Each structure stands twice: as C-alpha cells, then as structure tokens.
C-alpha cells in the first residue's frame, strides 16, 4: 500500500509571516485508500493459507483456550522424551553403557508415543477444516485468487508440518538428553549421527499418515468434536479389535487382519527405517510381512485418503 497521502500542507512561509517559527506540518488521511502496491497473487495466497493453518493448529492469534490442547500434547510428548533421556542417563551412570543401550530410544519412541500423536491429530486436525466450513469462511477463500486445491493442499501441508514438528521435537529432546547423559557427548553424537536421518524419516512417515487421515475425517463434518471422537475411536478401537482377531486367526489371514491396526501402520514403517522392531509391533503378526508390503500399505493409507480429501474439496469449486 502506498504511504498515507498528505491531504493538506501547512505553508511554512505563511506561518513565519505571522511571526511564529512553526515547523512545517502535514495532515495525513490515514483512512481507507486505494492500494497501488505489489500484488503477489496466487503464490501469496497459498503461503497465507499454509501460515494460517500452522497458526490455527498451534492456537496462535487466538485466545488462551485455543492453545491449551495442542500445547498440552506437545508438552506431554516432550515430557516422555525427557523422561526416556533421564532414565538412559541414570542407567549409563549407575549400570554402565550396556544398560543405557537397553533403555527405549529413538526406534522405540513412536511405538510408545504414537497413540498420543494420533490423539493430537484427532483433536487438533479438524480445527483446520471444520470451522471454515461451519462458519462459511471457505467461500471467502474460494472467491480469492486461490483454488480449492490450493486451499486443501495448504491446510494439509500446514498440519503435516505441525505434526512433524510435534513428532520430531521429543525425539530431539531425547537425542540431546541421551547425548548430555554420557561423559562424552561428542563421542555419543558421532556414534549415533545416523539416527538423525532415521528420526526425520520416521517422523515424516507418522506425520504424513496421521495428518492425512485426520483431515480426511474432518472433511466429512462441520463439527470438530464429531471428527475428533470418530478419529480417536478409530485409532483406539482398531488396536484391540485387530490385535485380538489376528491372534485368533493363523497365517496370512491373521497377518492381514493385523495390517488393519491403524495405530501400527506407521510404526511398521518406523521399524523398517530403524531396522528394529518396537514393543507394540513386536506382537503384531503383520511384522512378518515383507518390508515392501508394509511400506506399500502405509503409502496406500496415505495416498487414498489424500486423494479422497482432494476430491472432496475440489468439488467445492466448479
């Protein structure tokens, strides 16, 4: 926008003629004016949708109540990472390096904390989509220089980025905690540096999966609570149901039933990345399936919900 336009200049000559040494002054119209500044079009619109999605997910720019839920989950996950680091540090100090290696670490973290991440996605994810449709804000987006695809991709990217951050933060707390718990932190880091890309990859796997499913469910209702309850139920109910049934069924059928344990799908990928089996997937018959099948199953559960989500929003515009 242009600077305020001076609507009236006070003539210093006239002022001095009156015998007063007045400074030159200007009266500005600070109200609405036409805009002649840069317009960044669709690219700026996409960035704005992404940025607003991140702010919405974390409760920024909203009241205190909007921050309680996301930050409670973040605090809980960081606390778990911190506790695991403390336990590892204590084990190292009092029982030696071998004992510290036995304490759950990066490869086990998502096995332990994935359910908290799922509930985080279930509770926070719908906030990015449901209010826009319930309040009718979506129409305001669609008459601006972005498309429905820009909107939903921006929202998905924003929530995936937030979920990724929430997934990675405790892992890095754990990494730093374990590093500082040893007498030689630099040596620990040089021994475990290859954990960092694995942490990033497994964090991305769980973030993409949970955010896509959460937003797909949220796209079917304007009520955030309905979406959250459904998602929590889906993740929590699918676990004992598929676990129990897969134990009853032997062989390939049991393995395939186990594949429908929605909580385990990204954890299997985590196991593939770290080359280790975490506690919660250890008992799942699906772990015996091939790595390409496990990875392909995860990809299917990302791509199909992602495609459905896109289709649902694409329909909003002609």
């Amino acid at each position, binding site marked *: *926008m242009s600077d305020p336009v001076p609507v009236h200049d006070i003539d210093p000559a006239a002022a001095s003629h009156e015998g007063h040494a007045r400074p030159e002054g200007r009266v500005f119209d*600070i*109200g*609405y*004016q*036409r*805009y002649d*500044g*840069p*317009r*960044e*079009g*669709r690219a*700026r*619109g996409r*960035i*704005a*949708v992404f*940025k*607003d999605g991140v702010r919405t997910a974390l409760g920024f*720019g*909203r*009241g205190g109540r*909007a921050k309680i839920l996301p930050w409670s989950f973040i605090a809980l996950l960081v606390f778990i990472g911190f506790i695991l680091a403390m336990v590892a540090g204590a084990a190292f100090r009092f029982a030696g390096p071998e004992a510290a290696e036995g304490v759950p670490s990066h490869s086990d973290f998502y096995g332990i904390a994935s359910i908290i991440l799922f509930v985080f996605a279930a509770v926070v994810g719908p906030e990015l989509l449901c*209010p*826009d449709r319930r*309040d*009718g*804000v979506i*129409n*305001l*987006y*669609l*008459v*601006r*220089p*972005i*498309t429905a695809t820009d909107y939903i991709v921006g929202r998905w990217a924003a929530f995936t980025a937030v979920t990724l951050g929430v997934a990675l933060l405790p892992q890095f707390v754990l990494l730093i905690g374990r590093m500082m718990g040893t007498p030689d932190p630099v040596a620990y880091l040089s021994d475990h540096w290859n954990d960092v890309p694995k942490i990033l990859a497994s964090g991305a796997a769980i973030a993409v999966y949970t955010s896509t499913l959460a937003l797909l469910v949220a796209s079917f209702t304007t009520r955030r609570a309905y979406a959250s309850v459904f998602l929590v139920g889906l993740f929590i109910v699918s676990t004992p149901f598929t676990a129990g049934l897969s134990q009853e069924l032997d062989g390939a059928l049991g393995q395939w039933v186990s594949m429908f344990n929605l909580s385990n799908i990204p954890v299997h990928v985590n196991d593939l990345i770290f080359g280790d089996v975490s506690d919660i997937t250890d008992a799942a018959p699906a772990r015996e399936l091939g790595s390409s099948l496990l990875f392909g199953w995860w990809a299917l559960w990302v791509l199909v919900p992602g495609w459905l989500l896109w289709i649902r929003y694409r329909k909003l*515009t*002609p």
Partner: protein
Amino acid sequence: MTERPTAETGAPHPAPPLLVACDLVKRYGSVVALDGVSFAIHDGITGILGENGAGKSTAIKIFLGLLQPTSGSALVLGEDASQSTRVRARLGYMPEHDCLPSTVSAAEFLTHMAEVGGLPPSRARTRAADTLRHAGLFEERYRAVGGYSTGMKQRVKLAQALVHDPKMIFLDEPTAGLDPAGREEMLDLVRKTHREFGISILFSSHLMSDVERTCDRIVVLQGGRLVQSGEVRDFTAETRSVFVEVDTNRERLVQELERRGVRVTADAGGFRVEGPDESLYDDVRDAVVDADAPLRRLAPRRRALAELFQGDPTETGEMIGAALPDEGDESPEATP
C-alpha cells in the same frame, strides 16, 4: 419460446461493461434458479433486486465462480472468474450468511484475508487497519469477532470484501439483520465506498428502499428471469397522478373529486388522484374546499420500485409491500 429481455444498465458507456451475463441458466435438479438471464453492468452501484428465491444470490455466485452455470456465460472484468485466479484478485464478496470465524480478532482475520488476496504481509496488516477504520471498527479491531454485534459483523464482512482493494465488490443482502440505524449506516458505507474510492458495487437486496436509496441502476429478477433493468431514477420518476391525504371528510372528498371527473384510488392511507392534464391540481384544490376536508398532504406521486413486481408498474392502486415486506415503498415526493 418467448423472447427474453436483454439489458444494459444505464446510458451508453464508452468503457466495456464490468459484468456480462449472457443467456445464463442455472438449474438445481428440477428447480430453475436462473432462466436465460442476460444483462450487462457498468461502473457504479447496481442493485440486483428480487424476492427471496428470485436468483440474486445464484447470479452473484456464478459471477464469482462459486457456481457453474448450467448453460450460458458470466464474465467479470472480461473473464470467467471460475477459471481465472487473476480476476478473482480484483473482486470482493460479502456473503449474505455468516462467513466470519468466531475465535480470531477482526484485525487478524482481515490481515489474513488480505494476504490470501495476494498482498504482502506488511502491507496486509496496514490495509487491515485502514479498512477497519473505514468500516468504523478501528477501536474494536483486536476483539474476537464472535463477541461482535450483528451490525459489527456486517461491517467486518464488508471490510474483508474491501481489504485487498478490489475493483468490484458483490454485496449479498448487506443490510440483512440490521436495525434501521444500522441499516442506514451500512448504506452510507456502501455509498461512500463507491463515491469516494470508485469501487464498483453489485448490491443484492429484496429491500426496495435500500436499493432505491443506494443504487444508480438496477437489475430486477423475478422467478429466475430478468424483469427490468435500467437507471433507478427512470423507475422512480414522477407519475401523472397526485397523492392526497386528508384528516377528515374522506368520503365527501372522494365524491367531490369523482363529480369533477377524476379517477380516485385508495393508496396507503390517502388517495391517488389521476386526471387528464395539469388542471388536476385545480380540481383537487376545489374538491378539498367544497368537501371541507383538512388537507394533510398533497404531492406528485413517484413510482416505487416495488411496483416493478406488479403487472402494470404505472397503474396500480395496491402496495406490493405484502409480497416484498419493507417499510416505505410508497414514496410521495414531498409533504406540505
């Protein structure tokens, strides 16, 4: 098939029209919302007028690209808004229904909407503050929108339509839900937006008086068809009849008037008197004297926009207020 009216609002314009609807049809299943509507709209404030269900909102949504027409075309600034993000950057829209998030402040929301409209963040913040000042909400801009009154929410809706400085804005029932004072303020704001900043406005309403007081031109829809279009002043021109209102002796006055050969029709608490020529005023004067009827009002009668919805817009003795509920549709020009 009957020939449908095609219209260009206003006098001939050198500039190309901002909006062009060409044989626009929109069907929802068996329901026809727009039935072959064609018109062009130029710079200014244009009212799109019609009863509820006439097709006003549908037409606006088609122009904005929110709906696809069943057939025909709708061009805004020379382009189809459903296909062009570039043209949408120059349009603003104030929907009829709720469109505001309840948990964020007006300043936050407008800044975001300006950015979505393509403005850089620092400019968006300034624009949001300036636009809220224009809308009269500067002092309240950091309060959550959910705590605003209906009138304030309407102002925020208008402000978000303006924040990215569009060339044209679409206002869908902008006075809906407002009390008379709020309505007047909103209409002032709309007029100011065009007259001071040159932003063209398409103003949809079913309230005749709002359109009459605000718009330069009108497009009238009824049952999805174009009924009329043109300059508001042409529709509200003086008629050849005179409106007469007296305190007492009404029946005697009617007898005196009829004895003089003029036609008398009951009209909004008074009479509408029609005569062959200018001698009508002399006849009315003499009749009032002879009937000993204390005169309350004598005025040339203007046509009300509401009469556009009646069969013969110049020759009607009944108000149309029942069909289009509103105050003050009848409009005698002056009171004594």
